[in-house]
């Protein structure tokens, strides 16, 4: 393979190589944009130039075959230029509005939908799951596919929403994504303490690092069969899996007790309200591949009730803040349990320190 000239520290290619001419010309000089229809928008430059974007949903996991198909479409309609978005959609960049419809037809023929702009639901930011990661409490791609099949009308625009609604998925508490700040977040959770392989532990792991990895101090040094190892105080473990991350001998994956939780009301933008974390709605739902029907139902329920009740421009969390969490639980029918009450470090900061409460008329 010495035919290739190996280089290091060259960094990524310069982005200018990939910018369409219209972008180069109007760089930093865009005047405004319009959403023409779901998945299609135009950006108008001060110069009067018009750049059309067609946004296409993908499963994120893409075969090179598919990428080549996209490249071909870009050649056919966009002079070879395209981009991906921060939520794993493909954007075809056109200058000729007449090409929009043919492009959409071709894209859809390949099986990829157009949509996800404006107040449509965009692709679900997600992680590796059983496709690649060792610590996943559930699969990522499968849950995402199942949920998006159900939410499809919200992506294509045949159903509409009061505001943006961002769904995210992470397969374990490491949260490789923005799950902690999403309108709706689905999170894989372990719910039993790790099982230690005392024979592997001494050779695989450093015990002090392992002990330090536990947020709640549940791991203590112990001698097992005459060898140094650790033991886990099960009552103190909240199944975060951090010990498994640093030490493979602390296996936390468990087919019976792994599952999914649902969170709502997070956001990232600074628009109107400040960025917010997602809050717990459903602490646990069983892992039910290949279609995770309980999870899909729960997500759809939340979306439907939000769509029917929120006001224009109101993100999920903004809506809930306006009506109050008690009403949210009542409307959605999810049970409020002790698990919903924070009991970690700053828990007390979440207790309701006011007599400002909504009440319902008694009978």
């Amino acid at each position: 393979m010495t035919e290739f000239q190996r280089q290091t520290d060259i960094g990524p290619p310069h982005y200018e190589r990939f910018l369409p001419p219209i972008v180069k010309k109007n760089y930093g000089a865009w005047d405004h944009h319009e959403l023409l229809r779901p998945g299609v928008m135009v950006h108008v430059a001060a110069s009067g130039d018009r750049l059309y974007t067609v946004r296409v949903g993908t499963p994120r996991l893409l075969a090179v075959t598919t990428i080549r198909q996209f490249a071909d479409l870009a050649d056919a309609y966009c002079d070879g230029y395209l981009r991906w978005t921060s939520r794993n959609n493909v954007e075809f960049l056109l200058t000729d509005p007449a090409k929009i419809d043919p492009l959409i037809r071709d894209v859809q023929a390949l099986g990829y939908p157009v949509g996800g702009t404006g107040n449509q639901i965009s692709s679900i930011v997600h992680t590796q799951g059983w496709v690649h990661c060792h610590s996943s409490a559930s699969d990522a791609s499968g849950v995402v596919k199942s949920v998006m099949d159900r939410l499809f009308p919200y992506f294509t625009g045949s159903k509409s929403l009061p505001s943006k609604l961002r769904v995210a998925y992470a397969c374990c508490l490491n949260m490789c994504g923005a799950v902690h700040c999403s309108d709706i977040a689905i999170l894989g959770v372990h719910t039993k303490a790790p099982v230690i392989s005392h024979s592997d532990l001494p050779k695989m792991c450093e015990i002090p690092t392992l002990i330090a990895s536990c947020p709640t101090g549940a791991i203590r040094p112990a001698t097992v069969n005459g060898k140094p190892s650790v033991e886990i105080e099960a009552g103190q473990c909240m199944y975060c899996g951090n010990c498994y991350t640093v030490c493979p001998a602390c296996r936390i994956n468990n087919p019976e007790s792994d599952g999914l939780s649902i969170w709502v009301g997070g956001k990232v933008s600074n628009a109107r309200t400040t960025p917010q974390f997602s809050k717990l709605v459903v602490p646990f739902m069983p892992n039910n591949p290949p279609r995770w029907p309980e999870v899909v139902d729960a997500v759809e329920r939340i979306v439907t009730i939000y769509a029917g009740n929120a006001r224009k421009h109101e993100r999920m969390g903004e809506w809930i803040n306006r009506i109050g969490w008690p009403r949210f639980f009542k409307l959605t029918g999810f049970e409020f349990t002790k698990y919903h009450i924070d009991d970690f470090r700053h828990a007390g900061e979440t207790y309701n320190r006011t007599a400002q409460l909504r009440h319902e008329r008694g009978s």
Partner: protein
Amino acid sequence: MTKERKTPLLDELEQGPWPSFVTEIKKEADRPMAHDLLGILERSYADRVSHWKHGGLVGVMGYGGGVIGRYSDLPEEFPAVKEFHTFRVNQPSAWFYTSDALRTLCDIWEKHGSGLTNMHGSTGDIIFLGSSSAALEPCFAELSHHGWDLGGSGSNMRTPSCCVGPARCEWACYDTLAACYDITQAFQDELHRPFFPYKYKFKFAGCPNDCVASIARSDCSIIGTWRDDIQVDQAKVGEYARSGTDIQSEVCNLCPTRCMSWDGRELAIDNSNCVRCMHCINVLAKALKPGKQRGATILVGSKAPIIGGALLSSVLVPFLEMKPPYDDLKELTAAIWELWGEHGKNRERVGEFIQRVGLGNFLDGIGLDPVPEMVMHPRTNPYIFFEDELDDDAGNA
């Protein structure tokens, strides 16, 4: 009687329009205790440091609280205040008095102590400032003979207090005076004989205006509220508007949930989204009134900063009818005291205890179901201690 003291620094504080505590002390300074108090206080002003030492255990027979012991570190120089303990005399509900009752108290205190008081202490008691150890018993005997008892100090229930409530306020959502009196009487043993991990305070406020600052400084805050709709007299709203109140900006725009609207003729309230904050009622006092289904929200755990930082009380029971004999509140209190009494650490207030064990576990312990009103929002971190019986319970409804 005693020769005049030179108190140049304190004398400065007799200048100015606000009534002076120095003048008050001087009013009694013909007797030794107040006289020496002036002396030691002048010394503190010069030295910029307190000349009082810790109290030690002083009190009246059979009680573990009600007296705060105090000794000076200059006993030779100021012998009359060598011992300078305070009595905490349990005030009547809402601090109503007759002139006769006050005179009786003054007579007793002039006879046995310095003749100086705090009307009142921060917890609510009548504070008799400065008694010798020897005078404690006789003073208490005379007080109790006249129907007065001591309040709390130490690790016990502290003297409950309440706002003026139905006695003079149109907004009282329950009878604060009666509730305060009833709870004080029901828990006399807990008030007088310390056996808790630490102090436990009750404060009763008739509505969310909270005129006794209950949410900031009582382990149990009982704050009046209502369940049905705000009572509105539209004609009177109109009168306010005509006489210069800007209903939109002064009322609607300041409503925390913006659940009101005003079209210049009618004030519409979405009561389902009203959080009973009182603002609109405060501003439009003649036109608006709390609803008719009244009761109180029970909140727990407020306290001063030490050790873990100050706490405000947080919601435990969103709505409780506050009807005598207040069995619900008493049962709840008993359950809290039992749990905290058994598991609370020494000098751990109930608010700190809840933070340590977690509100969820606390609820389990006192047998109360969790409701979303208890929190500002559900948890944001995924560190859930699932219990073994995990399944339907925690799942989807």
